């Protein structure tokens, strides 16, 4: 223990020295200034819409409720299928009822969490994948002019993955009886918000 404590300040300064070497003070040149805003925009975008946030968190919570392998299979599947939806949007392929699909995703995924429903894995993956297309179609293509598509995509996918991670972390409380109850309450809230989103989409 004593050795470890005396070692930490040295390690701290080593890490500091390593970090300082990465300071980009020398990297001036270049015409592509401002490209990084694409990454920030992509990173912020999924958090800007409550419908997307709630659906992504519901995916994570449901995956945690279902346990292995759904806990990792759903978050692995979702970004890829979501990107297919975004690609459809980018290619101009029409997808009617996108907003309704997003609202339904919140209702159904919330209901799954509320009821702690355990369908077969393939059905869960298909359900999540189906809604992922709507989310990707609506959100993946909203790149502001002049920003990097690649960096926007990276930010968007990472932020969506982080939302799944939050959902999984929340879902891990299902091990305790109180946690199970709390998750069901969260599912009810997500489903209720989904009804509001659906109301707005149809209005």
């Amino acid at each position, binding site marked *: *223990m004593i050795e470890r*404590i005396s070692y930490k*300040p040295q390690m701290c300064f080593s890490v500091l020295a390593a970090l300082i070497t990465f300071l980009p003070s020398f990297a*001036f*040149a270049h015409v592509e200034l401002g490209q990084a805003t694409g990454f920030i925009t992509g990173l912020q975008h999924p958090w800007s819409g409550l419908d997307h946030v709630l659906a992504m968190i519901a995916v994570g919570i449901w995956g945690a409720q279902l346990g292995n392998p759904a806990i990792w299979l759903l978050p692995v599947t979702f970004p890829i299928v979501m990107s297919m939806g*975004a*690609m459809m949007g980018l290619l101009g392929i029409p997808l009617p009822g996108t907003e309704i699909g997003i609202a339904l995703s919140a209702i159904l995924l919330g209901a799954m969490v509320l009821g702690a429903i355990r369908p077969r894995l393939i059905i869960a993956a298909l359900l999540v994948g189906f809604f992922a297309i709507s989310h990707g179609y609506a959100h993946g293509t909203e790149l502001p002019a002049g920003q990097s598509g690649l960096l926007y995509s990276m930010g968007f996918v990472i932020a969506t993955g982080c939302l799944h991670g939050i959902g999984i972390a929340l879902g891990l409380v299902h091990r305790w009886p109180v946690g199970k109850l709390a998750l069901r309450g969260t599912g009810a809230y997500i489903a209720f918000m989904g009804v509001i989103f659906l109301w707005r989409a149809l209005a």
Partner: protein
Amino acid sequence: MNWPAINRSILYWIVASIGVLCCPSPSAAHLVTTGMGPVYDGIGHLLLTPEDLVPVLAIALYAGLRGAVAGRRTMFLLPFAWCVGGLTGSAVSSATSIPIPALSFLILGGLVAADLCMPSAAVTVLAIALGLVHGFLNGAALRDGAGTLGLVGIMTILFVLVALISAFVVSIGKSWARIAVRVAGSWIAAVGLLMFGWAMR
């Protein structure tokens, strides 16, 4: 437990982190002129160009998932292939309409996400192909900028990155850590799909 010592250590970390975060110099990516010479320009180019960096991370992750032999081969052959591709690219025009980075993201990210069992020879072929193609694309740009010495910088950082990442992935024993690697692969594949969309728009 020695709380004061630990608290002091945490304080060091906080001060160090704040110190680094208080230096917000703008960083401009791609074909960087670092002011420190062509070798560092090459290093900077790879580290600040996601089109090249992310496929390298993906192949390193995949080689790590496939084991130590695949990791070792990738560590040596990827920089070599990148060098050959770069030298070829600097001699020949490298303009292409094929979205190569998108393909690299998609294929390598998909392989990591699926954790597909392939023989280490196949991983080696993938690494060589990646190095040749991306090196070729880098070649023309380096001819106008950092030149051959830039390639040396790129090879150096490739070796370091693949060695560190592959070794890390090979060493992970816990199943959740392996799953985290696969999730990262799915993100890379997803970005690749989006890049295809942007390219075809």
